[in-house]
């Protein structure tokens, strides 16, 4: 016997059809939602790339003021752009946003340096002498007195050509540095105002945030912990960076800085009096060591210990040439990938390799017996060995294309 109750059966069938339809509708809805999200992300990603291009453009010259722009004048492609000075490099930040979605990137920029100069020696009316296994690859700007071979400790010059590149005449002074950038660094070196953020703990600050200033206490001026991101460390006394410290992309300002043996990191260190690093220290690209001398009667110096590997920029600067010129001392068996600029002396300990450029007023080389001036003995100096991806700093007033140097978080 077939039970009738057609109404119940109809309701059940209707419910099944309703559930089936609802699931189809839900599937289509979520698919569409994801599609729209993907389209938005594609658009944001393209806008982000446009923003990066604008920040790398020569036409973008505004520093420190975030700018909101309508990319194509259609009022639906908004970008926030910001460029700041970060030590000797530029820090750029771009955010693309639409509705509740925002994506962003932050990065350091550098200048593509096409200059093939390996050596710049100011003209102090004395020649440059080369001896031993010295090899200069790249252009050399030398005093009018020129370059000559020399016997040092019974060893002649072992190479075939004195300079594997063109030789030009240098001026009496080094090419000037970017004063605007130096003034910015000076401002931080003179800082005694910021008193907040005293800490002995590890600190991380994203580059999307505003800068975090941390003053290292005078009572314990030692960095032992991890400091990464958009952080400026200030110290009023000699600051020691221990081997176990982890420094990533930060800037340090102190009157004097001591870096312990075997430290490894990536940071910019600026001091007034001296920066001394221990042996087997590794500074990853892009790092910077800088000394800024002003009205001091002492000789400020940067001393790199033996077996150091340094990638980036080492510079010393003084306002006016004094009797106690600044000195950069490069340790034995060290490898420098980048630029060394001394508005004073560069002291070399053989053997030493520089993949990049040396600029100074005078060379000093110390052997067990004698101190030689303007001699290069067993020094390898190669501009061509420097990586083609190496980007330089705005400090050197280079005219070149800006590129992304490092992506940051």
């Amino acid at each position, binding site marked *: 016997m077939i039970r009738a109750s057609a109404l119940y059966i*109809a309701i059940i069938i209707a419910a099944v059809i309703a559930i089936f339809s609802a699931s189809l509708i839900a599937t289509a809805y979520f698919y569409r939602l994801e599609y729209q999200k993907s389209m938005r992300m594609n658009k944001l990603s*393209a806008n982000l790339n446009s923003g990066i*291009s604008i920040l790398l*453009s020569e036409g973008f010259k505004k520093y420190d003021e975030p700018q909101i722009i309508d990319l194509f004048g259609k009022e639906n492609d908004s970008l926030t752009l910001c460029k700041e000075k970060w030590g000797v490099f530029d820090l750029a930040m771009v955010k693309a946003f639409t509705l509740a979605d925002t994506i962003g990137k932050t990065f350091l920029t550098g200048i593509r340096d096409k200059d093939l100069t390996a050596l710049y020696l100011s003209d102090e009316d004395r020649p440059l002498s080369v001896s031993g296994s010295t090899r200069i690859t790249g252009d050399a700007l030398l005093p009018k007195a020129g370059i000559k071979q020399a016997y040092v400790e019974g060893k002649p010059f072992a190479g075939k050509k004195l300079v594997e590149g063109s030789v030009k005449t240098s001026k009496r002074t080094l090419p000037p540095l970017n004063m605007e950038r130096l003034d910015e660094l000076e401002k931080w070196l003179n800082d005694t105002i910021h008193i907040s953020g005293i800490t002995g703990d590890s600190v991380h600050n994203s580059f999307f945030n505003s800068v975090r200033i941390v003053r290292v206490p005078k009572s314990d001026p030692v960095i032992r912990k991890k400091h990464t991101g958009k952080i400026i460390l200030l110290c009023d006394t000699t600051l020691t960076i221990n081997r176990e410290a982890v420094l990533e992309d930060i800037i340090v300002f102190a009157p004097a800085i001591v870096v312990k043996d075997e430290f490894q990191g990536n940071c910019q260190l600026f001091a007034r009096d001296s920066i001394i690093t221990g042996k087997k220290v590794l500074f990853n690209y892009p790092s910077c060591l800088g000394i800024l001398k002003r009205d001091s009667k002492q000789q400020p110096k940067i001393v790199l210990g033996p077996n150091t590997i340094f990638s980036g920029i080492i510079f010393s600067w003084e306002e006016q040439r004094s009797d106690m010129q600044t000195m950069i001392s490069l340790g034995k068996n060290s490898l420098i990938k980048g630029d060394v600029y001394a508005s004073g002396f560069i002291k070399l300990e053989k053997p030493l390799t520089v993949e990049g450029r040396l600029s100074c007023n005078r060379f000093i080389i110390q052997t067990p017996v004698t101190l030689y001036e303007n001699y290069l003995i067993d020094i390898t100096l190669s501009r061509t060995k420097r990586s083609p991806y190496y980007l330089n700093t705005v400090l050197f007033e280079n005219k070149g294309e800006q590129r992304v140097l490092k992506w940051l978080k």
Partner: protein
Amino acid sequence: MAEVKKITLARKLEASTLVEVLIAMVIIMAVFVSGMAIFVNVTQSGVSISRLKAQERMSKMMEESVSNADWHDQVVTEDSIFYQKSVVAYPAYPDLLLIEIKAKQNDTDLGEFRQVVKKEEDEDQ
């Protein structure tokens, strides 16, 4: 024949009332029709394969232009979709270009893709 009729008449069948059947039919029809209407509406207004394909192709064209430093106008027809790439200077920035790619199929706009790019210098050092 007479016996068969007798047997059939001897059994009793419970039947639905006319009202029950009518209501049931109305409910099923209403749910089915509304479900179909919504489904058709969603599928018709949803994502079209052509749009997806066009978006993908435009994105690839942009990538190729940037990686090959190709700053020339271009017209491409692929799978009956017409792509037009135009390159113009980006206002206020002399070293920047605006690349715009538009996709069309039978006079229907399938989308557009714009990006500002930097004129790269040659890689030779």
